[in-house]
């Protein structure tokens, strides 16, 4: 029964997301459409944390690095090579993926605390480097550019200047990304990821190459973060080194865990909750970040498995069965050190 409910909920979600530009402008022209666009983009960064922590049990605190590479890949390709929207997006993904290959080869040799710390260290190195390489990156001020059209042929021209077009472009690419991840995670590779998360020693004994599995997940997570960065660069029409700071990684980790790691769509809801909350409170209270921090602490205290955990517990209660879902964090928390 819960599977059917989930499927129905997914349809409702898809319909709601498709209808966003039709209804939200009634409240405040364009503003909320842009907020939802932003949520979709940031949810990809949270998903990249989730891929590592929720599926192979490695807690990364440095995904902002690949986000930043995605941003600069797109921005530099557009400004220097005159790349279009698609070329820029691709350049962002490629830049982030290459960085993830280099960092991953070293980082996935470590686990748990050591892994968390080395990912921060790598991101800090490039953050400081990008900050001081002002001629290339613009440093703190960033690099502004004008967004090329998304599609310009047969007399039809789609540009990101139109909020609704921008929303559908981002929605399409985000949905495509989630779809691909869904396929990957239910493939034999995805099962191997989970085996590594649950118990890396047993996984090794049944012939899984644990190192390669973790590296694959790391590179995949880098590519997803790169897509998020490229989209965010086009969304804001600029790239800035400040997005590579560890605070951005931290926020993504928080969104993923608040949403519920180990579930594909959990991070989307975590991101949505915290960003919508932030937007609502920031209109009435200058020090809204205090409330965001408090909400974060409260969610973790009262729903340690995140929103996804609340949802599946709720469903289980409705159908009169006890939750039999394994705790996705348990495996990670007990990872051998």
């Amino acid at each position, binding site marked *: 029964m819960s599977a059917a409910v989930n499927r129905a909920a997914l349809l409702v979600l898809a319909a709601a997301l498709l209808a966003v530009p039709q209804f939200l402008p009634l409240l405040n022209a364009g503003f909320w459409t842009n907020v939802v666009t932003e949520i979709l983009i940031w949810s990809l960064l949270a998903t990249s944390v989730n891929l590592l922590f929720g599926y192979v049990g490695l807690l990364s605190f440095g995904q902002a690095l690949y986000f930043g590479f995605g941003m600069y890949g797109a921005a530099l390709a557009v400004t220097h090579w005159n790349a279009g929207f698609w070329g820029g997006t691709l350049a962002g993904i490629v830049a982030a993926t290459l960085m993830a290959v280099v960092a991953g080869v070293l980082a996935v040799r470590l686990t748990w605390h050591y892994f968390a710390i*080395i990912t921060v260290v790598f991101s800090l190195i490039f953050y400081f480097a990008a900050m001081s390489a002002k001629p290339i990156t613009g440093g703190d001020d960033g690099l502004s550019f004008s967004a090329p059209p998304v599609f310009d042929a047969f007399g039809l021209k789609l540009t990101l200047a139109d909020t609704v077009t921008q929303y559908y472009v981002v929605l399409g690419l985000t949905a495509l990304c989630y779809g691909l991840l869904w396929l990957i995670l239910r493939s034999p590779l995805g099962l191997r990821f989970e085996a590594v998360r649950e118990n890396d020693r047993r996984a090794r004994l049944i012939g899984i190459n644990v190192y390669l599995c973790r590296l694959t997940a790391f590179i995949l997570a880098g590519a997803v973060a790169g897509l998020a960065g490229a989209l965010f660069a086009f969304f804001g029409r600029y790239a800035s080194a400040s997005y590579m700071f560890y605070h951005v990684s931290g926020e993504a980790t928080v969104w993923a865990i608040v949403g519920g790691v180990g579930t594909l769509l959990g991070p989307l809801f975590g991101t949505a909750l915290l960003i919508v909350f932030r937007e609502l409170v920031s209109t009435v209270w200058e020090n809204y970040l205090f409330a965001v921090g408090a909400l974060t602490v409260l969610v973790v205290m009262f729903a340690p498995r995140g929103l996804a955990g609340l949802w599946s517990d709720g469903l289980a209660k409705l159908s009169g069965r006890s939750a039999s879902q394994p705790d996705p964090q348990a495996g990670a928390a007990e990872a051998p050190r």
Partner: protein
Amino acid sequence: MTDVVFALAINGLVWGLIIALIALGLSIIFGLLDIINVAHGDLFMLGTVGGLVIATATGSFWVAIVLVPIIAFALGLALERFVIRPTIRQAALTIVTTFGLSMMLQEGVRATYGPQPRRMAPPIGGTVPLFGIDYDIYRLFAAIFAALALAAFFVFLNRTKLGTRIRAVRHDPETATALGIPVARVCGITFALGTAMAALGGVIAAPITTVEFRTGVDILPFCFMAVVIGGLGNLQGTVAAAVLLAVMEGLVTSFANPTIARIVSLAIMSGVLLFRPHGLFAGATR
């Protein structure tokens, strides 16, 4: 030129001893409770702000240096009880709770104390000739005070009953419970002690740094570097690494810009993590 290099090296040493105090607080929390405390830098920030506020209110820096650690200790006890303990079973969650805590501390200070950075006049003015250069007396005092606080902490840890209990719980919490040690209370006290050390570092550092709600963000990576390079759980290693790193950054700063210095120490840290994951001083006493 040698004067500049020397002055920067001494500055590094002074700063390193203060950082060592803060990083040691991080290290005992990490070693005992197994949590990565992302809010630790903000506890330091709270110390600098509290120091400035109390010193201005009472007119004496010395009142602040006594009061701030005591207040921080009480705050630490409360934080551990109400925020850390409910999530202690899942180490990953504590990163999220401390991250939320960090946002609350920063924003709380910004809302009450204000967003503008301020400077604090050192309580002891003047300079003293030191190997051919005129050196700030307060900085020397700060270094000596930090060193004394570090020494006092190690004496406390190795010579008192409570210190012995803390070491016992670090070593093996289950056996400690079986021997009748109140493990939960020891954990609470340890967290509070770590908080107090960060805040004490903050008060000492207040006259030689800017006082604002963001200072914790810059100090946190440096403390983590000291903890990791010294070896996770190796307390003496943390102190040695903090001093080494700060002196090295001071020296590199004399011929390159501070950002390059920071990149160099981060690169060293990656090397240590990858090739000597138990720290530079592995094999030293735990």
